[in-house]
């Protein structure tokens, strides 16, 4: 039979009493110079096993036993109602710790690849318009401080483009742009961006680069696809989920690290999102009797223009924010659109 040395505290004063503890049947027996107790195990509570941490057994009246040998105590209590739960003993067993590391990596891998896009998609579609508008307004604000200046296009030209686009029927449902804005940005070049709330921003440079209005309509249809499928909102939700995970994982380590990592993890549209938006554009252009090839042509022009500028060393500053880093796989996309003709 196992007998353990322990410190007994009566719950009324901080004085410690050296005692001996043993199990007899379903009862715990405590004996010392001034202490003589026998309590049914079921009435006692015990602190969880946490490595070699000292354990505390608490009596119903608030008295406690402090026992330093956790392993020995576990053996003594085996079979009584006080023996440990799985979660408490798992960290003490190497095999469970290793299994947890592997499990954690698998969980994160699978979660990031499949769970995250799925959850983000469902949540993005559930977001109320008010929330999307708040996100859109916020994004627009930061845009204007990032090298997007007031447009230099004539008002008549702007209205012409807006009217043309608004006359087109959307592909699915009644997805509408909330507003179409023009911005001048030599820094970012030919570009078009759709914000989660349906705000569309088109650069003067894109209008200038296009050979005809069909090409402009093509890019705008593509951007409307991002809005219809809520790709932007999806990115925002994914960022929030990644940030939440990182803050659980890293604790209070640093909110800056968390925020930065979350942004890096989700700042680009995925290739799949691009494909969806392209398919949306193809369908919408066909429905409105425009040739989808116009979109492919403009993409090719933008790509060519970008490469030329890069070669000339002018594109250095654009790397992180330009159309091609936020819209991946251009060659593949052009081929796909042309095949759809």
């Amino acid at each position, binding site marked *: 039979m196992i007998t353990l040395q322990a410190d007994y505290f009566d*719950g009324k004063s*901080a004085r410690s009493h050296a005692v001996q503890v043993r199990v007899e049947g379903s009862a715990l027996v405590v004996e010392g110079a001034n202490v003589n107790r026998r309590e049914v195990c079921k009435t006692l509570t015990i602190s*969880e096993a946490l490595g070699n941490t000292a354990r505390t057994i608490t009596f119903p009246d608030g008295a406690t036993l402090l026992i330093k040998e956790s392993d020995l105590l576990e053996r003594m209590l085996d079979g009584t109602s006080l023996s440990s739960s799985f979660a*408490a003993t798992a*960290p003490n067993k190497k095999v*469970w710790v290793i299994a*947890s590391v592997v499990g954690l990596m698998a969980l994160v891998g699978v979660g990031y690849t499949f769970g995250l896009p799925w959850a983000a998609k469902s949540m993005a579609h559930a977001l109320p318009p008010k929330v999307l508008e708040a996100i859109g307004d916020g994004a627009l604000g930061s845009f204007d401080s990032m090298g997007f200046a007031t447009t230099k296009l004539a008002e008549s030209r702007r209205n012409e483009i807006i009217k043309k686009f608004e006359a087109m029927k959307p592909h699915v449902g009644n997805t509408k742009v909330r507003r179409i804005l023009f911005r001048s940005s030599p820094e970012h070049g030919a570009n078009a961006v759709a914000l989660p709330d349906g705000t569309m921003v088109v650069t003067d440079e894109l209008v200038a680069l296009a050979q005809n209005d069909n090409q402009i309509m093509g890019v705008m249809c593509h951007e409307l696809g991002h809005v219809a499928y809520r790709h932007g909102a999806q990115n925002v939700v994914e960022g929030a989920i990644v940030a939440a995970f990182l803050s*659980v994982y890293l*604790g209070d380590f640093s909110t800056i690290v968390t925020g930065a990592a979350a942004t890096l993890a989700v700042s680009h549209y995925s290739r799949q999102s691009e494909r969806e938006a392209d398919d949306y554009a193809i369908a919408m252009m066909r429905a409105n009797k425009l040739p989808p090839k116009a979109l492919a042509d403009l993409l090719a022009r933008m790509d060519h223009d970008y490469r030329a500028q890069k070669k000339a060393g002018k594109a250095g500053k654009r790397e992180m924010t330009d159309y091609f880093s936020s819209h991946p796989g251009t060659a593949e996309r052009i081929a796909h659109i042309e095949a759809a003709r």
Partner: protein
Amino acid sequence: MDSTPAFPKTLLNEPGSAPVESAPSHFPEERFSFSGSGAEYFGIWLVNLVLTLVTLGIYSAWAKVRRNQYFYSNTWVAGANFNFHGTPYAILKGRAVALVLLAAYNFAGTLATKFLVLAVVALALIMPWFLRRGLIFRARNSSYRSIRFRFTGSNGNAYRTFIVWGLAMLVSFGLAAPAVAQRLRAFHFNNLNLGTTSFRFTATIRQFYKLWARTSLLWFAAMFCVGILVGGTLAAIGGWAAAAPALPIAAILSFWLTRAHYVSGMQNLVWNNMTLGPHRFRSEARVGPLFRIMMKNALFTIFTLGLYRPYAVVNVMKYRAETMSLLPGAPVDEFLAQVEREASAVGAETADLFDLEISL
């Protein structure tokens, strides 16, 4: 989830001034010690993390209990350890309430700006109540030698402290921060008891401003020395391209150095100016060792993609516990218990979620 354990926040924390002169008693000094290890806590942290992820966060309440128990139970002074008694159900209930409040707050924000203003005002009005509940919960669920801690601050006092000083903070553009920090700690510790024995907190607002001033000076000095001197030397040798990397490095080093100074200073300031009945404390945390520990923690945590984190937490806990002593003015086993009603966890959890927990 894995924020610094609540125990250190309640009992071990912060800082500053010179150590108290030796105790005028014939009882020997009792050093605090921490018996936990990084490897041991790694297992606990990992199992907590996996179960929390698998249960979509529900397990985090159990995780918090186990984490607190680990840190409390491994902190020793005068031959006995501390204990945490909070239950997962109490914490879970608190989290549910916190979540509802947070949702209401966010919802109000999406409706209209005037609702957001209302929500902020409502929040300011209920926050002191929650913070006080949180302090009661934490004290009630902490014990030493079977004697529970008790928090006896009144609602009136909580509202006075938080609202008056919160406004002072706004009006002064943050310059009142050191004074507010002192007032919050005074509210906490001057209402904290171990059984029937009371804590008294005597650090002054002036001492808090001194610590803030020294910390700010250190930051400027560190930025200047590392940035200008090291950066300048590199620029002289290899041109500006070689000097550019020196600036982020200067910023990071200065940040950790400043943090080490603040954390150790605050620990010393609080504990060297605290009494518990006839007992006093001595805290001798130093900037150098803490800085080395923090740098090592940061580097290892980055290189192991976060897996070093539990070791890092233990390293800091160990250092902070081991730089503290109790200077008994009477036999330590004379603390007496006092019967008290149960406290709910709602306050502590809401404060956690809103990140307004006054951590001392």
